[in-house]
């Protein structure tokens, strides 16, 4: 790895000052499980790593059934699925947090880091989009919010300015009769990069779909929010035919490439199958959550 300097700010304000001074030659580190690999590979040309793990707001989990969940950007995966209240309220988030990497990676990796890394295959981003998540960002001119579906702007590119830091992720409180799920296809049982993935959420109303959100991994330059798939089934009965409609739209929305992990045709097929299965699981979870 080339020479870097290392800063450990203890407040968001201090982090923003450090980032501003660095003039784009710095990156924030949460778990480091992607950043350190990328630095060794020469992906980023930077001089400074800013450790976010000493900033209180980046390391807190706050949940209550009225205001929802605020998840510090550097909270490690194991702390998320180890939090019983969060695990019960957001099973769709836990699906992703418990399958990113193995035990050791989950000891460090964070959903905030996964989001900022902004790879198309990031497992946590589709469920965060499906759960209507918002990114809380701090910069020299104060705070702003960005919907998670608008956060990734290209492969490894995100909406953060060079002097901004992702502080936390916010998810609205789950309403009654809602459910979510994330699943992916990988050729192995564990520890692999998604060939495709589907994160979905539904809200039911007397056996009908009231609202649905569908998002896909690994089939476009960014995680893909397929708004039309959810919109098309709102108001329809929660049955196989409705699920088929949304799954078909998801398949048609996918814009995958052929690479060593899979072909365009295979990935399009996966989008249909994964969206169907994820919606079925989310509907089952919604029925149990009343």
């Amino acid at each position, binding site marked *: 790895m080339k020479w870097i300097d290392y800063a450990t700010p203890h407040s968001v304000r201090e982090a923003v000052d450090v980032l501003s001074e660095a003039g784009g030659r710095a990156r924030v580190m949460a778990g480091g499980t992607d950043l350190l*690999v990328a630095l060794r590979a020469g992906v980023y040309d930077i001089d400074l790593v800013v450790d976010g793990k000493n900033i209180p707001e980046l390391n807190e989990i706050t949940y209550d059934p009225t205001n929802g969940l605020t998840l510090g950007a550097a909270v490690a995966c194991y702390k998320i699925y180890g939090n019983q209240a969060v695990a019960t309220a957001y099973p769709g988030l836990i699906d992703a947090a418990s399958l990113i990497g193995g035990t050791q990676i989950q000891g460090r990796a964070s959903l905030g880091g996964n989001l900022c890394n902004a790879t198309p295959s990031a497992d946590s981003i589709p469920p965060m989009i499906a759960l209507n998540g918002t990114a809380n960002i701090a910069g020299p001119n104060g705070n702003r919010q960005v919907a998670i579906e608008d956060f990734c702007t290209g492969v490894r590119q995100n909406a953060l300015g060079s002097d901004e830091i992702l502080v936390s992720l916010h998810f609205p409180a789950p309403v009654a009769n809602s459910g979510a799920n994330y699943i992916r296809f990988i050729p192995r049982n564990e520890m692999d990069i998604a060939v495709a993935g589907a994160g979905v959420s539904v809200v039911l109303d007397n056996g009908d779909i009231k609202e649905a959100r569908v998002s896909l991994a690994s089939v476009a330059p960014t995680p893909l929010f397929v708004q039309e798939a959810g919109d098309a089934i709102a108001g329809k009965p929660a049955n196989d035919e409705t699920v088929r409609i949304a799954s078909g739209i998801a398949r048609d929305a996918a814009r995958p490439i052929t690479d060593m992990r899979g072909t365009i045709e295979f990935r399009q097929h996966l989008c249909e199958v994964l969206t169907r299965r994820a919606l079925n699981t989310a509907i089952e979870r919604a029925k149990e959550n009343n």
Partner: protein
Amino acid sequence: MPGKTYVQTNINGEHVDFLCEPRQSLLECLRDVIGLTGTKEGCNDGNCGACTVEMDGRIVTSCLVLGVEVEGKEITTIEGIADGSTLHPIQQSFLENAALQCGICTPGFIVASKSLLDQNPDPTEHEIRFWLANNLCRCTGYDKIIRAVQDAAVKMQEA
């Protein structure tokens, strides 16, 4: 050019201080600066688990931790597993069950297995395989490792 950083930490129950460059991983610091060479380097990108250590009660791959990050932390490496010259039951089990061949993955497997049995003294085979999915072994085919962990779990519960 940045200089070296002074880091104070606790490794295997003992206070340790060392100097490192900010770009050096904990793995490099353990092996090349502190001289604890029991922790092995395999892939150096977090896939193989050979460099697994415990940090503040949770296993991590030390190749993906910067040395400067461990200020004030508590680290356990493979050197901290045995009690003097008495092997830990997991180490004894790995020997008795022939759960190693070339041995380079073994320190990582033992540190990870100990962390599992510390929190879950009676894991199922599935739980063991799931927990150890971040540790790769190219020799044994894993079955002997899983049996060694199961055997150690029984012995540790009887003790």
